[in-house]
């Protein structure tokens, strides 16, 4: 058998319709060209998923993807990406989760788990060291994610096991249902939980004791020393270790970059009540880390007393705090922690849930929700009761309103009609998260518009790093314009487009190599620069890759994912922003800001990316340059 370094070297395939399990070796050429994670998975999706497939049908694929760095002591390597066609957006769907599942899948001998088909009755998948079996899950069906994981862990008490599972929301095919790991680590976005639910797959449990080998030990040790030092510098330079991601609540709010009241404004007067410091002081039990992470942003949190108790779990992230706090004007942190716990337990994406609830409250305020839909509910800003009622209604598709909102903000607003579309904040159907092109950085105007999974802050990167963060991420050798322009600038579109593209491709490296993207977010010397990543990957895998080659692989993957979307019908008209981002911010330090030159920004990005300015389809020349000729033949010419 061929030796693999860095990789486990095999793909596990499970066809739930036929009850068949098979495994196959990884394709070395594809691994060299796409590395791993969402890169290799993009190739699988392109090759194997017929265009136009209904995401909730048995034909959809669900890929649990790790990268070569996953499970190694690369400082943030506890990671897996879920890849599928999204039931929320109808296009490329992916969601990343930290925790221990990814490393354990690799230690069990598989880089990828590809699930297809649909089981006749609820099942879960049990994987251990090169073996797998499909097991009955009727005793788990209907249970929350915490109980599901606990029951499987108790059944397998003699091993170290990770469980990725869905809750009632995924079972009921809520379009933004999430997949939750036993430590409250969540692959949240795009509705992977609904895809699992549609396959009658309640959980995947994995235990592994196998090994990951190193190709060039001497170079590897040097590369590890370098990346470890950068990680410690990152830890010192950021708030994540001390306050977790909630540590950025107050700084962003003070900068007028904290989306509030369904994106009507970017400033929340009570932000200090729900920030990272408040969370640490009141509810933190201890910091907990994902596998191999020396930063440790995880907030192991508990609310013991008061009206909104929450059992010990890994508490809310920045996004959750904004989507349930600022967006709904809720200033009671305990309520937010409890809402986070409930969403994790039901298996809901907190970003989409918060967004769609804020939409519902505004729609109610404007009289857009008809009496018969409301079912006696009164929806109010700043009211935790509204939040809890709607979370339950959505997770269990209870009453008409719950059923409506469980479809996501795009479908819900279309059904309500009459101006509801204008207050629905999404791109390509993905509810936009807690960053705003107006208040944070115009970079998000481009990122939200062209992101392959729709309006997302983290895929492929938080591109405001350049102008909002004044960070270089080691991208200067790649032509990053320096110094950065003002974060509100829309005139120097070329510079902005160049920066967005470089940061996007850099961020994508994290998904392809299989580590946590936070660690690409800082300056040279304090983050995983392309050079550090290339050195580490080369020494680990034995592939000879320099930093420019790595960024080229990233661009290849970015374009392949784009072409996947083009094949599903995405064109320039879909690269659009919601109306709200063209309305002035109503208050705070960024009052009056709005996006003025969207077409200019978008066209500049198309030029930079080598995409056709009329259609937004990657040009033949670009695809050829990236070695994607076979893709160019299968999509309409621009």
């Amino acid at each position, binding site marked *: 058998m061929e030796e693999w370094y860095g990789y486990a070297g095999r793909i596990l395939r499970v066809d739930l319709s036929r009850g068949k399990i098979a495994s196959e070796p990884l394709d070395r050429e594809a691994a060299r060209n796409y590395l791993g994670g969402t890169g290799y998975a993009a190739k699988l999706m392109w090759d194997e998923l017929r265009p136009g497939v209904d995401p909730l049908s048995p034909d959809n694929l669900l890929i649990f993807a790790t990268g070569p760095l996953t499970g190694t002591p690369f400082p943030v390597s506890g990671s897996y990406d879920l890849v599928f066609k999204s039931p929320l957006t109808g296009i490329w769907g992916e969601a990343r989760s930290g925790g221990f599942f990814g490393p354990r899948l690799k230690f069990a001998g598989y880089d990828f788990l590809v699930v297809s088909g649909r089981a006749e009755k609820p099942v879960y998948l049990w994987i251990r060291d090169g073996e797998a079996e499909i097991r009955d899950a009727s005793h788990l069906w209907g249970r929350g994610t915490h109980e599901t994981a606990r029951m499987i862990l108790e059944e397998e008490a003699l091993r170290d096991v990770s469980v990725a599972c869905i809750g009632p929301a995924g079972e009921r095919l809520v379009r933004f249902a999430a997949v939750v790991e036993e430590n409250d680590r969540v692959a949240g976005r795009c509705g992977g939980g609904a895809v699992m639910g549609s396959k009658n797959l309640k959980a995947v449990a994995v235990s592994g004791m196998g*090994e990951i080998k190193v190709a060039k030990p001497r170079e590897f040790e040097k590369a590890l020393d370098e990346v470890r030092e950068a990680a410690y510098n990152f830890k010192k330079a950021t708030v994540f270790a001390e306050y977790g991601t909630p540590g950025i609540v107050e700084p962003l709010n003070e900068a007028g970059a904290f989306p509030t009241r369904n994106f009507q404004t970017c400033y929340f007067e009570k932000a200090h009540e729900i920030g990272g410091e408040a969370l640490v002081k009141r509810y933190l039990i201890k910091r907990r880390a994902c596998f191999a992470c020396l930063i440790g942003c995880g907030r192991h949190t508990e609310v013991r007393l008061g009206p909104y108790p929450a059992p010990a779990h890994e508490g809310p992230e920045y996004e959750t705090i904004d989507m349930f706090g600022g967006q709904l004007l809720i200033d009671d942190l305990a309520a937010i922690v409890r809402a986070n716990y409930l969403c994790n337990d039901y298996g809901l994406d907190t970003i989409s849930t918060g967004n769609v609830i804020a939409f519902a409250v505004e729609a109610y305020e404007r009289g857009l929700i008809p009496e018969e839909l409301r079912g006696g509910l009164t929806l109010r800003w700043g009211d935790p009761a509204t939040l809890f009622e709607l979370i339950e209604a959505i997770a269990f598709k209870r009453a008409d309103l719950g059923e409506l909102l469980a479809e996501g903000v795009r479908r819900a607003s279309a059904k309500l009609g009459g101006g509801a579309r204008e207050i629905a904040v999404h791109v390509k159907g993905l509810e936009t998260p807690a960053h705003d092109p107006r208040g944070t950085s115009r970079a998000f105007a481009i990122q939200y518009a062209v992101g392959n999974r729709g309006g997302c802050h983290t895929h492929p990167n938080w591109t405001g790093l350049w102008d909002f963060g004044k960070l270089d991420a080691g991208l200067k050798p790649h032509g990053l314009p320096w110094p950065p322009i003002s974060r509100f600038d829309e005139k120097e579109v070329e510079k902005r487009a160049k920066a967005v593209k470089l940061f996007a491709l850099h961020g994508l490296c994290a998904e392809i190599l299989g580590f946590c993207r936070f660690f690409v977010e800082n300056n040279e010397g304090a983050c995983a620069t392309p050079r550090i990543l290339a050195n580490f990957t080369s020494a680990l895998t034995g592939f000879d890759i320099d930093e420019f080659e790595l960024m080229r692989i990233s661009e290849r993957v970015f374009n392949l994912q784009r072409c996947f979307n083009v094949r599903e019908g995405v064109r320039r008209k879909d690269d659009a922003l919601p109306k709200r981002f063209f309305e002035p911010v109503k208050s705070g330090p960024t009052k009056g800001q709005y996006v003025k030159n969207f077409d200019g920004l978008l066209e500049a990005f198309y030029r930079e990316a080598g995409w056709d300015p009329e259609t937004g389809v990657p040009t033949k020349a670009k695809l050829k340059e990236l070695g994607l000729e076979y893709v160019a033949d299968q999509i309409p010419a621009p």
Partner: protein
Amino acid sequence: MPRALFWKDFIRLVNSEICMKTLVALPERCTGCQRCVLACSYAHAQSFSPSKSRIWVVRAKRRIDYPIFCNQCGLCVGACPAGALSRDAKTGAVVVDEEKCVGCGFCVRACPWGLIVLDSETGKAIKCDLCGGDPACVKECPEAALLFVDLNEAASAKRSLLVRLLGE
């Protein structure tokens, strides 16, 4: 019972520089990241595998992430019929002589804490050897939850450990 020091061991002790430090863990500081596991695996097998590690991290509810490793008590030494286990006179660690080990697993049975196991590949016993007096896990720990410290300081930490764990 732990084997007593033989006279020749004693001579070696006197002649060598005895390491007056030992390994201790502070579970409150541990975030459960398992970098120690990876470092241990690499130090002993030049690869990354939970099955090659001589240290484990147990995550329990609420506050506990506990790195667990052999405390070098020596119960296994007496259990070994092949004479493969002995105490390293410099570090005080009980070490395995791979040549002599026959893989019978009597040591695994004897250890009350599950801190000596059989290697899944070679079938021979593997356990913490304190890396010859410079433990790789301690260097890799990002939270100073694993310490290689003066014997009396370690004793002090151990005394309160049980009480702290019970207090959970």
